[in-house]
C-alpha cells in the first residue's frame, strides 16, 4: 500500500463520499426487488467506488489492481454470462489469497 498525493479537495472527496453512500444504500434497497444477478454487479461497483474514494484521499494499493484485473476485464459479463462473471470473481479471490499469503510470509521474515 502506498500513500499518494491528494489531488482532490476535501469538499470534492466529501461529495464523492456522499455519492458512494447513496449508491450503496439505494442499491441495498433496490436489490429486494431486482434480479439476484444484480447483487454481485452492484457489490463490485461499490467496491470500485470505495477504492476510487480511497485513491482520491491518497491511499492506493497497486497489488489490488492485479487482484481485480480479472473482474474488471469480465465486468461486462455480469448480466449476460453469470457463470463467466462468477469465475472472474473466483480468480480475483484466489489472487487475493496469494497476495495475503505472500504478505504474511514477508511479515514473518522481518
Amino acid at each position, binding site marked *: 500500500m502506498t500513500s499518494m498525493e491528494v489531488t482532490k479537495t476535501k469538499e470534492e472527496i466529501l461529495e464523492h463520499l*456522499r*455519492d458512494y453512500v*447513496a*449508491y450503496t444504500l*439505494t*442499491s441495498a434497497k*433496490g436489490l429486494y426487488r431486482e434480479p439476484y444477478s444484480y447483487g454481485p454487479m452492484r457489490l463490485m*461497483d461499490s467496491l470500485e467506488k470505495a477504492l476510487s474514494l480511497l485513491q482520491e484521499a491518497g491511499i492506493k494499493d497497486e497489488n489490488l489492481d492485479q487482484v481485480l484485473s480479472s473482474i474488471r476485464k469480465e465486468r*461486462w459479463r455480469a448480466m*449476460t454470462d453469470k457463470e463467466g462473471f462468477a469465475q472472474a470473481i473466483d480468480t480475483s479471490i484466489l489472487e487475493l489469497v496469494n497476495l495475503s499469503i505472500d504478505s504474511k510470509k514477508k511479515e514473518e521474515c522481518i
Partner: protein
Amino acid sequence: MEVIDVIKSRRSTRSFEQRPLPNEVIQDIESAILSSPSGSNAQESHFVVVQDQSQIHLIKRFAPGLSGNPAAIVVLCSNGTAALEQGGIDTSEVLRFVNLGIAASYIILAAHSNGVGNCPVRSFHGPSIKRILELPNNVDPELLISLGYSDTPPRPKTSKEKQEVISHDKYGSN
C-alpha cells in the same frame, strides 16, 4: 434513416461524451412524447426532461442503474389519479404503465434517429427521485431514460431465437 433501420440499429448506451444536446434534439424528444399514443387517449402521464447538471448529479446519486454521465435524463412519470379519472380502472391498474412503455419506445427511437445514445433505467429509489424533482403526491417516477452522445462503440445485440419469441396464428406455431 428509415424507421425500421432506427429500430434495428438501436442499442443501450451507458457511457457518454461530455457535450450537451442541441435544442433540436430536445424538441424532437418532446414531439415524440406528445405523439405517443395512450389507451383511451387518456394522456395521463407526465415527463420531466432534466438537463441541469446539478439535478442530473442528484438523480444519479439515487439511481444505481444509471451509468455514465448523460447530457439529459427524461423521467417518465405515472399519475394514478389522472389515470383513474381519464381512463377508468383498467388505465389506473395496467394501461398507465403500458402507455409509459410506448412513450419510452418513442423517446429512445427519436433519440437514436438523432444519433443520441440512450438507456432506459428502472433501478432507482423512487421516493428520492420524487423529492428531487418535486413531483406532486399523485405523480410517481416509473422509468428514467438517459440521453447523450455515446463514447463507445455499441456491443452486438443478443436476442433469443425468433421461434422462441414469435408465433404465427397459434402459440408455438411457426
